[in-house]
């Protein structure tokens, strides 16, 4: 503490290095201060476009991440039974030789017997490409578990979505409605946005079963019942339609609402768009009553009525089909209210408010602009209603269509990429969906053909199926189980690999995917699968597991070979426009990490290790003609690798003189330029490019020059989704690629070209389990890649089960009671907390606080292990024989969990509780005191 003669101007640090945070997916800029050669503190970079100088609770405790005793120290080779956590330390040469041996054998014989999965998404531009060069389609990150419904529904509907793809115009919006954000996605950008809402006096409505975090500062909290968001959105749409409060001009300009849909039940083209001989969609021109090219700028399309094609068949505008759906009784507010637990007057009030703000409080930005047809407009006119949504509406088996319904609502309000509305972040919008198809063509000793491992099918022919209909991928992504699995299906990997369904794999190669714990459903069963042996041979059913992590996470125990990674302060990283960019609505941006701390352990950056392995395997793109490595390390790759001529990992300071943006030759001094600029690059859009990007000539032309789009065509929002209808037609038996008989009803129902709501499957099958159970990440730990931190755990070292006080009291439960949480899958023990701000049919907890005893180099009696718990143990991987997932995208339906509570004693434990992990070689003793 300061004595009275304290020097108030003592220099705080000797040096400052700038890099990028890694506690979550926000990628904030940080200033890392050093004093006397030691890490002094980490502050936000005031000039950084993402965080503008602020940090969150995790970013500001990064110093404890660096000091963690759970950091791995050296490569490890398993010595005991798998899962026993017995290893010996080995040298990197030996580790890489072992890995190369396993992988070379796979590539020589059948490359898809490698399953390479990354738990987090930040390195996909490298990891996905590496899998492609290796030749395996079996690659994905954690999106299939987290929020692929949100992303895929957005990409198929508007060519973008929330989070990295777009954001609310927080500076101008007057009404902001947030759905299902579980204290996450995004962190600081949302918080900075909330500050603007408060400053400007905008109204903030939060639709969420739980009133914590952001919902706590909302003007209005609507405590919705989980899984019914699509119904609420449907009721809002119905109210707006009936009140005649929609933006019809916006619909015919920017969506396919006026495109004519063939009405010929039973025909192979029923429900597809009527097109002319050139394949251009048709509309009904109101000026002359004739069919016309729907894409022409000077037609006067009708949104209702019907017409006949030259062959006599009936066609109607897509809008009419959409309106007929939402005018149906099931979306009547009085019917919706009791199912959503939101009263009818509130729903009607919200609808009127949306309409009032959108249509009576229109705002303008006085900047002339030119639309895609060449017409000049004097100003941008905006409807200042904006939305944000995330995992809370996505992680249900009806999530894809719920997310699509939200985009439909935005279209009807005319509130996409306008002033005050939701705005795209470049390089989005992309064509809806982007023209990238998943590749599945494998053969020994060559790269994957047909595309990268992940993409966007637009019809059954794009699915990854063998001739006999067997899924090509181990996780069955892009099969009839999950046709639009744009992020893959991480959550199906272990179960399928164990079962050899659709085929056995040789090696699981996992990167920062804690799939032995909180990134799997039904954890005890998963642990058994990872350690199970084939009785016939005595060999593990999953022969090899390679794992890379920086920390001693639970999954380390299940590895045969551990490749220890560096921390975020010790390595180069690349936050690329080819990956998940850090752009904002006014500008495009990317960034890097640079090592700011010297390594004190025998660990290596995983990205560099991956390139090293690639060169040892002789993979294309990583190996020179003479067999030597093409890249010295990942930093070298970041600069010199070109995905297409002139387009590489980083968009800033390209060209030999460093004066090119987007496209340009590799610049050997590129990283220096980034470092001199705070480790990020940002290009601000010209004012005339900033709105209506999907139809703005200056923006579209620029996006083509930058390589974001192939053509400067307008991006048409898909109110009606023809790709979905193509899958539905297949389910009716049309075409060469059709679903198996037992899947046809499910596919036909799910692939509705218009959004709809159906109750989650768990509503029907789980009688006796009356409560919804959901999770959120606490803000102090949100989305932490690695979740043990000396300061964060003083704030939260265990989780409780939270429940509405009224509901608890009705069941005879009191605050502090211990309960079994029981599902169809299992049970875990929890201590109860009763609260007010919780939907009465819902229980919830903080996710991923519970840890396996001994893991993370925590004491075995740490509260995380003794009293913490994971709901994952209760989530079934399958339901009624089908994956417990959205039938469109395969998104894990982990928010559809239904449970019941049974009182128990404090010290009861389940039989399948996993034993404490023993200490790991090389890790330091835990300090008793930190001072």
């Amino acid at each position: 503490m300061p004595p009275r003669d304290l020097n108030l101007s003592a220099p705080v640090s000797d040096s400052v290095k700038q890099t990028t945070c890694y506690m979550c997916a926000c990628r904030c800029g940080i200033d890392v201060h050093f004093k006397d050669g030691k890490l002094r503190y980490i502050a936000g970079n005031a000039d950084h476009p993402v965080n503008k100088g602020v940090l969150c609770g995790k970013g500001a405790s990064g110093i404890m991440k660096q000091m963690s005793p759970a950091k791995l120290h050296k490569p490890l080779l398993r010595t005991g039974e798998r899962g026993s956590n017995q290893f010996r330390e080995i040298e990197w040469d030996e580790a890489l030789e072992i890995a190369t041996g396993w992988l070379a054998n796979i590539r020589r014989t059948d490359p898809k017997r490698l399953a390479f999965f990354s738990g987090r998404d930040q390195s996909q531009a490298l990891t996905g490409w590496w899998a492609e060069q290796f030749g395996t389609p079996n690659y994905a990150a954690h999106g299939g578990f987290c929020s692929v419904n949100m992303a895929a529904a957005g990409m198929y509907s508007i060519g973008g979505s929330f989070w990295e793809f777009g954001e609310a115009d927080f500076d101008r919006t007057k009404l902001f409605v947030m759905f299902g954000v579980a204290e996450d996605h995004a962190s600081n950008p949302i918080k900075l946005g909330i500050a603007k809402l408060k400053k400007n006096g905008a109204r903030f409505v939060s639709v969420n079963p739980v009133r914590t975090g952001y919902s706590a500062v909302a003007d209005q909290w609507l405590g919705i019942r989980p899984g019914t968001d699509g119904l609420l959105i449907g009721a809002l749409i119905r109210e707006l339609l009936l009140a005649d409060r929609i933006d019809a001009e916006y619909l015919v300009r920017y969506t396919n609402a006026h495109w004519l849909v063939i009405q010929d039940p039973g025909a192979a083209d029923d429900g597809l768009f009527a097109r002319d001989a050139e394949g251009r969609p048709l509309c009904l021109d109101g000026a002359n009553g004739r069919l016309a090219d729907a894409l022409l700028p000077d037609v006067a399309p009708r949104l209702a009525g019907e017409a006949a094609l030259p062959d006599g068949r009936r066609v109607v505008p897509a809008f009419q089909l959409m309106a007929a759906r939402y005018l149906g009784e099931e979306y009547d507010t009085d019917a919706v209210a009791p199912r959503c637990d939101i009263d009818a007057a509130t729903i009607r009030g919200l609808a009127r408010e949306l309409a009032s703000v959108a249509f009576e409080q229109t705002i303008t930005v006085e900047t002339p602009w030119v639309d895609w047809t060449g017409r000049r407009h004097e100003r941008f006119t905006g409807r200042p209603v904006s939305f944000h949504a995330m995992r809370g509406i996505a992680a249900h088996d009806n999530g894809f269509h719920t997310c699509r319904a939200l985009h439909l609502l935005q279209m009807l309000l005319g509130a996409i990429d306008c002033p005050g509305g939701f705005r795209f972040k470049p390089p989005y919008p992309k064509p809806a969906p982007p023209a990238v198809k998943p590749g599945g063509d494998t053969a020994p000793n060559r790269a994957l053909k047909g595309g990268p491992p992940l993409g966007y099918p637009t019809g059954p022919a794009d699915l990854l199926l063998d001739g006999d209909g067997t899924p090509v991928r181990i996780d069955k992504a892009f099969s009839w189980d999950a046709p639009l699995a744009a992020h893959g299906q991480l959550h199906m990997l272990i179960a399928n690999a164990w079962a050899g369904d659709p085929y056995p794999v040789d090696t699981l190669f996992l990167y920062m995917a804690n799939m032995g714990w909180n990134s799997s459903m039904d954890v005890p069963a998963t642990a058994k699968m990872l350690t199970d042996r084939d009785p016939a041979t005595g060999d593990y059913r999953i022969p090899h597991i390679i794992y890379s992590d920086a920390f001693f996470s639970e999954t380390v125990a299940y590895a045969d070979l551990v490749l220890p990674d560096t921390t975020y302060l010790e390595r180069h990283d690349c936050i690329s426009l080819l990956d998940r960019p850090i752009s904002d609505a006014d500008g495009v941006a990317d960034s890097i990490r640079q090592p700011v701390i010297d390594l004190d352990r025998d660990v290596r950056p995983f990205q560099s290790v991956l390139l090293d392995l690639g060169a040892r395997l002789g993979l294309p793109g990583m190996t020179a003609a003479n067999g030597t490595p093409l890249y010295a390390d990942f930093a070298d790759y970041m600069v010199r690798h070109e995905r297409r001529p002139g387009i590489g990992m980083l968009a800033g300071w390209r060209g030999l003189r460093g004066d090119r943006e987007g496209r340009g030759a590799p610049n050997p001094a590129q990283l220096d330029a980034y470092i001199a600029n705070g480790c990020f690059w940002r290009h601000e859009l010209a004012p005339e490019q900033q709105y209506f990007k999907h139809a703005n000539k200056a923006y579209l032309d620029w996006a083509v020059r930058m390589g974001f789009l192939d053509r400067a065509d307008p991006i048409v929002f898909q109110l009606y989704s023809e790709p979905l209808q193509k899958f539905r037609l297949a389910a009716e038996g049309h075409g060469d690629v059709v679903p198996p008989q037992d899947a046809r009803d499910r596919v036909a129902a799910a692939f509705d070209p218009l959004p709809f709501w159906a109750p989650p499957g768990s509503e029907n099958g789980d009688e006796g389990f009356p409560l919804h159970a959901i999770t959120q990440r606490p803000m102090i730990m949100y989305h932490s890649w690695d979740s043990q931190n000396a300061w964060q755990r003083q704030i939260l070292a265990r989780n409780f089960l939270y429940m509405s006080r009224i509901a608890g009291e009705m069941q005879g439960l009191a605050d502090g009671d211990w309960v079994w949480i029981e599902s169809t899958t299992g049970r875990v023990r929890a201590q109860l907390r009763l609260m007010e701000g919780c939907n009465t049919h819902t229980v919830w907890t903080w996710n991923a606080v519970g840890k396996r005893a001994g893991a993370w180099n925590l004491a075995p009696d740490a509260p995380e292990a003794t009293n913490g718990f994971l709901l994952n143990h209760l989530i079934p991987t399958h339901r009624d024989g089908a994956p417990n997932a959205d039938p469109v995208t395969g998104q894990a339906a982990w928010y559809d969990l239904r449970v019941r509570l049974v009182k128990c004693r404090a010290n009861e434990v389940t039989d399948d509780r996993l034993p404490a992990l023993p200490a790991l070689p090389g890790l330091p003793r835990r300090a008793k005191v930190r001072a």
Partner: protein
Amino acid sequence: MTSLPPPSKVQLGLVIDLDRCVGCHACATACKEWNDGGASGPLSDTDPYGAKPSGVWFNRVHSYEVGDGADGCTVHFPKSCLHCAEPACVTVCPTGASYKRAEDGIVLVDEDLCIGCKLCSWACPYGAREFDAVEGVMRKCTLCVDRIYNDSMVPADRVPACVQVCPTSARLFGDLGDPDSHVSRTVKEREGFDLMPELGYRPVNKYLPPKRQMKLASLATETAAIDQAGFFLRWVDRLLTR
């Protein structure tokens, strides 16, 4: 017992906006990180990786619910030393270790004089003082006195670490002794309040109450009673332009 200096004209303090705090704990960890390695550190932790992790924090965020059911609200409530005008924690100090600065009103502890008797923590009604069991001394918020006057930092950084880091701008720093300062004006506009004013310690820090905007007053027309056929008739003759 320690005496107080004459009342200072300058009264530096924090204004905390409960309408903006989302409970992210950034202020708490940024405070700990700044002060742990600085003039006021270390802020010790005991059993950091064990069964009972515990440590010194100058700033903690508590979360409460007020009112029943959906009509209530959730309040995230950051709490640190309020730098009272009448700090009993200072007057109770037997050694003069606790003191209030004459020039700006900041309440500090001179560690060299502190004997760890904890009388100050008993005297503080807000629970703002934290005993460092490892170092055997009392610790508390310094309002980042080693930042706010620090000529070696850029002017924008010369605010408490908790203020600089806050992502929702829920924390303001300034001179609450000056009625025209931005903090004083904000307190007046937003009807800021003292914590437990009845106790008479006259805290300098203020809190701004949560405010919830009721629904917009002027709303669009009521939903017209219309059936499906009527709905489509309405649309059939509309001429739209692209």
